[in-house]
């Protein structure tokens, strides 16, 4: 019961902060503009894919996945920030389990990340990429799972790296390969075998694939496999994050 109250309190705090920090909002709106219009339209003719959809539409799941990756990893920054500015101490000297602190931080980050992905999805039609209304709920489910896995990863990093600089450097080092090797920008079949192998090893690939099936009805792996990989990765990263924090605090 106390654990639930702690999780609720930490989520509420993060959502209040999110609602007051407009920059996160602008970033989730700017991303579709930059990627769908500038890259999507530019690549339209070069990309005569076998998929039968315009490149911008093909790119949308990747842009959503990018929102998940960058916003999710940013949730780790908030933990580093809390440590730097003392707020973490206020929570750590409270008579609550370390598990509920990690789950609270994790769920809070997952919720704000999912919110940003929702904004990206809702904004896409305004830049000419239609989104079926019925696709939004299942897409958000996938986004939630994928966000949990990325936030878990961010918390694992934050448990070890104690400075902003250290965290941002490593987060960038992690985010970019995860994005480029996720099949977000081109079909896996078109990649050379060594690259395709790396893409298949990346859990984010399966999140992008699941989103693509939901959003434009094109997919590479089965939905079952996609969800299994994304869900399994989420369990793994959150589990390791909990263990890291228990060891560290």
């Amino acid at each position: 019961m106390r654990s639930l109250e702690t999780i609720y309190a930490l989520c509420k705090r993060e959502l209040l902060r999110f609602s007051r920090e407009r920059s996160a909002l602008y970033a989730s709106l700017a991303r579709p503009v930059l990627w769908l219009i500038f890259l999507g339209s530019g690549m339209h003719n070069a990309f005569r894919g076998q998929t039968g959809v315009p490149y911008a539409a093909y790119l949308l799941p990747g842009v959503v996945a990018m929102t998940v990756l960058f916003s999710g990893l940013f949730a780790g920054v908030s933990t580093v920030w809390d440590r730097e500015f003392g707020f973490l101490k206020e929570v750590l000297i409270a008579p609550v389990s370390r598990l509920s602190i990690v789950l609270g931080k994790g769920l809070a980050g997952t919720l704000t990340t999912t919110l940003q992905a929702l904004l990206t999805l809702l904004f896409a039609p305004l830049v000419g990429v239609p989104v079926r209304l019925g696709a939004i709920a299942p897409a958000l489910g996938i986004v939630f799972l994928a966000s949990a896995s990325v936030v878990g990863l961010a918390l694992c990093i934050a448990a070890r790296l104690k400075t902003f600089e250290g965290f941002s450097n490593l987060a960038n080092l992690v985010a970019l390969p995860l994005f480029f090797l996720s099949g977000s920008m081109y079909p896996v079949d078109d990649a050379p075998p060594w690259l395709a192998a790396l893409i298949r090893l990346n859990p984010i690939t399966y999140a992008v694939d699941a989103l693509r099936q939901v959003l434009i009805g094109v997919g590479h792996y089965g939905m079952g496999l996609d969800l299994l990989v994304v869900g399994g990765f989420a369990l793994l990263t959150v589990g390791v994050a909990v263990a890291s924090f228990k060891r560290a605090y």
Partner: protein
Amino acid sequence: MSRDDPAIVCDHLSVRFRDFVAVDDLSFEVPRCSLFGFLGPNGAGKSTTVSVLCTLLAPSSGGARVAGFDVAKAPDQVRARIGVLFQDPCVDDRLTGLENLELHALVYGVPRAERKQRMAQAVELTGLGASVNNIVRSYSGGMRRRLELARVLLHRPEVLFLDEPTAGLDPQTRRNFWQHLSELRQQRGMTVFLTTHYLEEVEDADAVTIVDRGKAVAQGSPSELKARLPPELSHGKAALEDVFVHLTGASIREEEASSRDHVRREVQRRGRLR
């Protein structure tokens, strides 16, 4: 905790960081409901001791009991019974004062039925008034301190740790802070454990311990300590500051940065506190 148990027992406590001894075989007792001054120059081991007493750092050897519970064996029991104002304020400055209070009440499991009333009481006692509805970013240093004090009162701690609570505040704000605190002590009968560099703040403490390089160098009431001062040094009317300088030397502590960094680095390595 029975009535006669001391609020804090520190029993041969040592904290070592690799080759550096921050706290060295330190023992003292703090009776219930007393005001206890814990003094020492920079780098003497004050904050390290506070970290151990409030369960953020494990002792290397020896131990401590707070509110009747062992800090290492029953940290949650200790945590539920203490309130801490750390050297650096740790309120969330993107939330309003009231939101900070709500968060604390939730995390400390203050019964839902009592939350509103306790928050209103804490706001009144600390004189925060209507500014409690403003975002904390707009608060002055003194207001942040009072907000922390209000927050700590919500779960009704038996023992209150104040680690240099008035550092960096102007004299008016300091006086105001102590007025609020003394009213609180009268109403609640809390034990207060205070570290400070403003020695006049502990002139009316019940007991004082002066530490230097991790060891206790003097213990007693302020008047006892002043009586021990050689007459040629007391200039007729001794202040606690004369005792302090006499016992810990007049040289300025150059090791301030290095030893604090040392502690911080080590605490980081162990992964506690920071």
